[in-house]
């Protein structure tokens, strides 16, 4: 039946609006209209019936004003106050306090009822139960019961009882089996309890007594739960008591009019039922109730509970939660990605290291192969060169044998021959040694080496193999250390010298010197080998460093490409250019000084 409430409210609003339009027209005979909004807690007809004498009294007492009664439900009345479509409001104490907070309603008098000695203690909640229902004796017995109330914002019809029930230890909003708001008129609720459709009904005090005296209900059928005895209060109440209804002026109500109304009301004699007007009571207790229940003007307090916050901001909370979750997921994902990337990176580095190692081993093998290839290309020259000391040794030895056989035993020539044999055998041994050193398969080992010494060894080996070749070489007496494998440098140098000699041979200029120059730059040493050979055609130039490119019939075409690779692996460069005078080629390479590794 909760869903019926908005409909009831709508009906009341429409009715109010209808009256608002009709009444002035029907009562157009005198004065300025003054509209009094009345909370119709017993239904619209009851308003005119209950309050007409007040209207008449005021109309009579205050000339030039015509008072009109307008009935509203609580929401409609609140709106009317807010819209300033009424000038005075007669409403429940609770509603009044709410209006005081929201719209500055200002009480000017309080109803004095016949059943209460003091207007300040005139209204409470009576919780009506069936007389025979033995389960219900105390307020706490309401737990788990089906309870009817007027509306969440009904003062006597819910809020007063709610405060006392709560103080008894039961949360009316949670602990009842069902809390049903059935709206005005209240009589229906009483009948519902009577009929057993509900266990209890919260109504304003004296309501039950009125119904009994009107004969609407049998007095023995119902009783008030946990009645409290209050001196001077003639109705039964389940709760403490609060001030009775006030009449309040609104902000826009003229002060003079308020004063006139207040005076008129205080002077009004008691009605036949015993109602009159008293000086406005103190509604602070109502305010306390609101504060305690966190309702009415203090509804915002309710919002600050966790539940309230949750109810109000669940969307935002959900959003924040979602953001947090997304953030957490993102963080975890980033962590995961970072760790995976790190792992990938480490794997890649390891692979790179392995590849570099393989490349190094490969390069070492290739270097060795290349050195053997160079030796192979030089083989006939080397054979010739070895043949010379061997042939010389043979000649000396035979010569000596002949002298001895002929009995020509002068010691000088014999000694001469013997020492010549020694010299030549040493010469042969040194050639073999240098070849073996060059050809040995050693792992490439970089160490601090004196470049000049290494170059000299290479030139000596070359000159040994090619005695007719002229190598012009005047290094300065300077220390020139580089980090390198001396064999590799010798290999490069031998290769360049061999190329130079081959080029000069092809050009028929074998006897002309091959110029080797040594230069010291800021961070590197530069060695150039200049020949006056046949040079290169432009198209040959572009392919100079390609593997297996060669201009020599017996060449492998590996020398220069390998040499370039070696020099670059040592952090240097290798390049070639035609000589300015267009005769021959100059090939040079640079190596970083030991103190500037990789600086070239």
């Amino acid at each position, binding site marked *: 039946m909760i869903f019926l409430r908005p409909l009831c409210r709508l009906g009341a609003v429409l009715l109010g609006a209808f009256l608002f339009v009709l009444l002035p027209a029907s009562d157009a005979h005198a004065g300025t209209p003054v509209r009094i909004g009345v909370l119709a807690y017993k239904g619209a007809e009851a308003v005119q019936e209950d309050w007409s004498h007040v209207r008449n009294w005021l109309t009579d007492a205050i000339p030039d004003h015509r008072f009109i009664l307008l009935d509203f439900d609580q929401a409609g009345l609140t709106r009317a106050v807010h819209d300033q479509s009424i000038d005075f409001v007669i409403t429940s104490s609770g509603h009044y306090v709410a209006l005081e907070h929201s719209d500055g309603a200002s009480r000017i008098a309080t109803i004095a009822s016949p059943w209460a000695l003091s207007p300040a203690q005139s209204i409470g909640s009576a919780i009506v139960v069936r007389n025979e229902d033995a389960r219900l004796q105390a307020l706490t017995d309401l737990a788990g019961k089906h309870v009817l109330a007027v509306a969440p914002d009904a003062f006597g019809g819910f809020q007063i009882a709610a405060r006392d029930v709560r103080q008894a230890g039961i949360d009316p909003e949670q602990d009842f089996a069902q809390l049903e708001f059935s709206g005005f008129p209240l009589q229906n609720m009483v009948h519902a309890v009577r009929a057993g459709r509900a266990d209890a009904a919260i109504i304003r005090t004296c309501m039950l007594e009125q119904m009994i005296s009107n004969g609407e209900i049998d007095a023995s059928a119902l009783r008030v739960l946990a009645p409290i005895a209050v001196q001077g209060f003639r109705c039964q109440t389940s709760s403490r008591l609060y001030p009775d209804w006030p009449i309040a002026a609104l902000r826009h109500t003229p002060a003079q009019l308020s004063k006139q109304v207040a005076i008129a009301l205080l002077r009004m004699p008691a009605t036949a039922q015993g109602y009159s007007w008293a000086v406005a009571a103190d509604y602070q207790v109502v305010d306390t109730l609101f504060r305690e229940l966190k309702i009415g003007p203090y509804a915002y307090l309710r919002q600050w509970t966790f539940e309230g916050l949750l109810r109000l901001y669940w969307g935002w909370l959900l959003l924040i939660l979602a953001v947090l979750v997304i953030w957490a997921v993102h963080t975890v994902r980033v962590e995961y990605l970072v760790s995976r990337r790190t792992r990938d990176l480490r794997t890649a580095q390891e692979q790179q290291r392995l590849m570099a190692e393989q490349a190094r081993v490969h390069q070492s093998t290739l270097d060795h192969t290349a050195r053997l290839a160079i030796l192979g290309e030089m083989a*006939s020259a080397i*054979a*010739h060169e070895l*043949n*010379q*000391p*061997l*042939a*010389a*040794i*043979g*000649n*000396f030895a*035979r*010569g*000596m*044998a*002949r*002298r001895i056989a*002929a009995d*020509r035993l002068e010691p000088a*020539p014999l000694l*001469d*021959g013997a020492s*010549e044999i020694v*010299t*030549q055998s040493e*010469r042969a041994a040194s050639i073999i040694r240098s070849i073996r050193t060059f050809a040995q398969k050693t792992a490439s080992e970089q160490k601090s080496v004196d470049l000049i010494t290494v170059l000299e060894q290479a030139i000596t080996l070359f000159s040994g193999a090619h*005695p*007719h070749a002229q190598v012009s070489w005047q290094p300065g007496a300077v220390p020139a250390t580089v980090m390198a494998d001396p064999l590799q440098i010798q290999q490069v140098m031998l290769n360049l010298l061999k190329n130079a000699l081959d080029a000069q041979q092809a050009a028929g200029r*074998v*006897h002309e010197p091959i110029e080797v120059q040594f230069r010291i730059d800021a961070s590197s040493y530069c060695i150039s080998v200049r020949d006056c050979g046949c040079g290169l055609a432009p198209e040959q130039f572009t392919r100079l460093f390609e593997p297996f490119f060669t201009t020599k019939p017996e060449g492998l075409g590996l020398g220069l490409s390998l040499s370039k690779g070696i020099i670059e692996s040592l952090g240097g460069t290798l390049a070639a250019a035609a000589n300015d005078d267009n005769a021959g080629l100059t090939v040079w390479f640079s190596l970083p000084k030991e103190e500037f590794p990789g600086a070239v």
Partner: protein
Amino acid sequence: MNERDAVLFVVDDDAAMRRSLAYLFDAAGWRVQSFASAHDFLDHYDGHVPGCLVLDVRMPLMSGLRLQQTLRERGNHLPVIFLTGHGDLAMAVQAMKTGACDFLEKPCKDQVLLDAVTRAVQRSIEDSRVNAQTRTAETALATLTAREREVAELMAAGKPSKIIARELAISDKTVQVHRHNTMEKLGVHSAAEIAQLLMAAKAGHPGTH
């Protein structure tokens, strides 16, 4: 002129090789002169001393083959023995065509080398002897007049004076005078000797007969 007067000329750019050859030849009793290059040898050699040339085929500046050619161009027939470390057949063929005495691969047995040297020197001495006779004959023949040379040629052919007179269309008496003068100038006493002289003169020019 005999082997004692012959000289072995060793030309090798390798000093050790040069010295060792000189040492070996010296031990075998030869007179030796050694040179570091073909140019040094050509500068030094006068073209008359008999002997033989021991050459390394491969030398810088001027190769052994080139030196041999140069000698021949100068009309010198000094025998050449090539030594090679390479056993290059094509080179050997060319060397022998140009008149090399021998082509030996290093290292070779000393006896082989020495035998080759001996053969070459003997040839050289023989050449020298022939050359000396030729020069003597040519000198003597050069003193004859044209008519006397004609008479000498016909005498060498064994023709009697009457025939010579008829062929030259001169008197028998005049032939007798030329004959007497010719024999006088050449210092010979018979027609056979004149024939020998003429042959010796021609022997100095082997390519011409």
